[in-house]
């Protein structure tokens, strides 16, 4: 049988995509469906004799009455909002700075990228040590040698939460900055020139010219940062283990604890499914705001 050139090209194109499809289908999409399946069964790893009885939506009903789950959800949302807010603000500042041409820009860029490149586990241990109640730099900076005033930052619910926010903002602001930088259009100098002649202040120029033009870039940075903040895990695992009093317990950590520490594969999977749905809704919302153009253009 003879195929036309176009058909042959399509077959070739598909065969080149096959390995990629296989990985993504087997280890990303199938597991999502499998999570839905697991969430409708009662499965306890430590009790294999129990089998896996089908329980319908019981696990979901239990989840809605689970106060720690609700608490983790609120913590996660709070974490997402505060970190993305500060990261976008600092990221914007970083983008505006590294976008300029000046001597040593390469080194400044590299230095600002260091926090992004450091393994999260390392930066978590680092911040845990900086917030240490006895040997930490934070106490030293605030109270100097007055050791009686030293605070156990990570043992207090309020300050522990602030500590993980600080650690995350430090680590990812530069990445947010890069995302914004990538979307920074070349804004013609004439625009600013004209604004200056009309007597616009620097702040007005920023608000009326720069900000509207970089809005798409900021939205994309927001999307990426929001999704990433949702899966915060390493920081919490290393710095606080969700404590004290669940004040830093977040959804991914709670799900991990239920599935792997307590072996509640069925119940834990309801958390997995809910987290997936929440992030899906948020990303669809963002992508509609940004516009689908970005995919279509890419796929040509």
């Amino acid at each position, binding site marked *: 049988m003879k195929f036309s050139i*176009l058909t042959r*090209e*399509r077959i070739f194109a*598909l065969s*080149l*995509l096959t*390995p*990629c499809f296989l990985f993504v289908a*087997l*280890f*990303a999409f199938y597991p*999502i469906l*499998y*999570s839905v399946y697991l969430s409708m069964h009662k499965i306890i790893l430590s009790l294999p004799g129990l089998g896996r009885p089908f329980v319908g939506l019981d696990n979901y009903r239990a989840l809605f009455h689970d106060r720690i789950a609700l608490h983790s959800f609120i913590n996660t949302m709070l974490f997402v909002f505060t970190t993305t807010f500060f990261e976008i603000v600092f990221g914007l500042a*970083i983008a505006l*700075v590294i976008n300029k041409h000046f001597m040593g820009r*390469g080194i400044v860029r590299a230095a*600002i*990228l260091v926090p992004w*490149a*450091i*393994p999260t*586990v*390392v*930066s978590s*241990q*680092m911040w845990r*040590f*900086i917030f240490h109640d*006895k*040997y*930490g730099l934070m106490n030293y900076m605030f109270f100097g*040698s007055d*050791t009686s005033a*030293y605070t156990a930052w990570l043992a207090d619910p309020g300050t522990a939460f602030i500590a993980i926010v600080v650690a995350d903002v*430090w680590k990812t602001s530069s990445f947010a900055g*890069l*995302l914004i*930088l*990538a979307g920074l259009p070349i804004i013609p100098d004439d625009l600013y020139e004209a604004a200056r002649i009309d007597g616009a202040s620097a702040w007005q120029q920023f608000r009326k010219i720069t900000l509207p033009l970089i809005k798409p*870039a900021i939205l994309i940075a927001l999307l*990426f940062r929001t*999704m990433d903040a*949702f*899966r915060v895990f*390493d920081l919490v*695992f290393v710095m606080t283990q969700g404590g004290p009093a669940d004040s830093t317990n977040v*959804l*991914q950590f709670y*799900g991990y604890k239920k*599935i*792997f520490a307590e072996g509640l594969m069925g119940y834990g999977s309801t958390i*997995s499914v809910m*987290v*997936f749905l929440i*992030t899906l809704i948020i990303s669809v919302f963002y992508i509609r705001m940004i516009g689908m153009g970005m*995919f*279509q253009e*890419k*796929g040509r």
Partner: protein
Amino acid sequence: MKKINRILFYITTFIMVVLSLLPFVWFVGTSLKTALEVTAIPPVIVPAGTLDSYKSAIDEYNLLHFVKNSIIVAGSTTVITLLISIIAGYSLARLRLKYKGMIMGALLLVSMFPQISIAGPVWRILQDLGWLNSFHGLVIPYVTLTLPLGVWILAGFFGELPEELEDAARLDGCSHFQTLFRIMVPLAAPGVFTAAILVFIYAWNEFFFALLIMTQQKFQTLPVGIALFQGQYTLPWGEIAAASTVATVPIVLLVFLFQKRIVGGLSAGAVK
């Protein structure tokens, strides 16, 4: 006015650089302190400059063993992801195919999955296959999660190459496959290299799946080792700082050497 702006700009830049580097410099300093200095109250600013913590991290905490595992896992992830991304990226950028936009969008979705939504099933699949606590058991999820990044970057690079080159190669009688590997891949080498750096950094730094899949110390990677460092009575902060420095120095070197590529690659993966 212009001068004041300039000075302000330099001050802002300076503060940014200091804030970015200071916490880590402090931790590196901690790794160079003696055991007494590490636990001094209030903290000692200037370390004695001893390598004791490094020696102890190597001798008592098996640091080099974790380094070796990390190199194996991150290295194989990088090679496999790149091979698959090259052919997939080429296909999506240069060949006639339907639903390209949808495929790229689906890949982007995968890169945004919260890991917890697939963690339980991935763990079960690996358990059924008997692949928990094995290098390939960790490399497979890593390849899956880094493919979107690799494909997006490489599709971007392939897409920008001029069409005439490919046509010329075809006229000379090259098959699709020859065109890809003899003509296109060498031309897209900067993209391949950029993707390699980013995938390597991802796999080197990843913690969540490594924690789930590698429960035996024999297979654990550096991040897992560092997160679970535990002394007999207290936390060995000097050793943790030393291991952290060892885990970070290669990555920081990559950043300083290839800052331009990383900036370009990250933005290609995100917006274009």
